């Protein structure tokens, strides 16, 4: 992206072209780009396959809001009891088959001898 005031730059791109982050499946597709260097089509197809939805559903906030709650991988609205932060990332790592460094750090702490 680049420099600009919040409305003129990030907001404009979010509305014009963004995948919607945890409002939809943007974070999941991003993970596959970061972890596996997948191009956008490959990353979307991979995530859609894991979620069992169509590629066009990945940026549909209505479809993904329900699915994220069902999978307990973090939802955008503030819902008591829903996985958030590291808990959500741990479940995402399992779902996508990727190792998330911050989750691994927690795992090591949990498993370390007292």
């Amino acid at each position: 992206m680049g420099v600009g005031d919040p409305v003129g730059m990030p907001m404009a791109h979010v509305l014009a072209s963004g995948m919607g982050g945890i409002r939809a499946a943007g974070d999941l597709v991003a993970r596959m780009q970061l972890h596996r260097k997948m191009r956008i089509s490959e990353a979307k197809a991979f995530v859609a396959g894991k979620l069992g939805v169509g590629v066009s559903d990945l940026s549909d906030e209505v479809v993904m809001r329900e699915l994220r709650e069902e999978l307990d991988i973090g939802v955008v609205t503030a819902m008591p009891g829903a996985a958030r932060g590291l808990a959500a990332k741990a479940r995402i790592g399992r779902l996508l088959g990727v190792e998330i460094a911050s989750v691994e750090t927690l795992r090591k702490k949990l498993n370390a001898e007292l």
Partner: protein
Amino acid sequence: MPSHRMRMGDGRVEAMSSDKVRADILAGTEDAADRGRIPTITEQERDHLFDLFAYPGRIVGVEPGREVVLSDDGVAGSLYAEQGDSGVGVPVSREQAIRLFERAFGFDTIELGHPDYSYKPVKPIVANEQQCMESVLLGTIIPVYYGAMPNLATYARPDGPFGNPSDLLPEGKIEEARAAQLAAAEACTRDMVYVGRKMADAGADGLDFDTTASAGDAEFLATLLAVEELSANTHLSIQVGMAAEFVLGMHGEVTYKGERLAGLYPHQQVKLVEKAGAAVFGPVVNTNTRRSCAWNVARAVTFVKACSEAASIPIHANVGMGVGGVPMCETPPVDAVTRASVAMVEIGRVDGL
């Protein structure tokens, strides 16, 4: 003949005829093709671009299903930073700003960065940055990068210990200028690797080298060497974002894996970034403030399309103030930004922005 509301590269609005819009689109793509020795965009793509600029609505968007991943270079700072970064000065912390971008604004990834956005000044305070990164990672779900600029110029006198090529070159001291740049580049690589390793220890998902090669080819080399080291020895996913469309030959003879760095355009830059081990590349195409946004966007997507076609890693084009066809002004107008955004996805074929 209908008249269209057209932004210029400095943000001003002018009235423009359809013929003029089409002529600007053609001239923009031909300028990129000529400089980069790459193909122009097709006639069908020029028509699509014309439709985007002729559409009377204020904002435009990609066809549903064609959305792409958004990454950034310290965008959370736009909430709390000062005017120099187009910041709006809201009294929130970095952690709070990042949470807002994840939960309120629908961002796909986010970046933590220090206000003095260069690796060199981060080095002595890296423990603070690690602590902040760890704190951010506890509560966020989206991938988190740490980002800063290589900024080789800060290593030259009076800011750093090495000779300043901007002083040495006008004096005809070519060899001294070259030696100073290489010595500075070595120190720059060391600092970037140091900070990168600390961020890996903190659990960051990725590392962003932003505004790469701002000081020219020696800075590009310094960055590629840091990328090579960090991608081979840490889990970090590395993004390299460029400073300009063309690598300046401040040294002129620097090479990486046998390739001369001076003069490379985005479709050539990406191949070296891939070889170094980066996961994402951010090409930059500079905006000409005297030309229309139709000219600038046509030119930018021509360079970026060639880069996307050459790449095997994801391409996240820079579409911020003064780059990617976006006007050079403090409050980028949403009409121009959304048109550049859509053109980058639908014609430039990017994987992200």
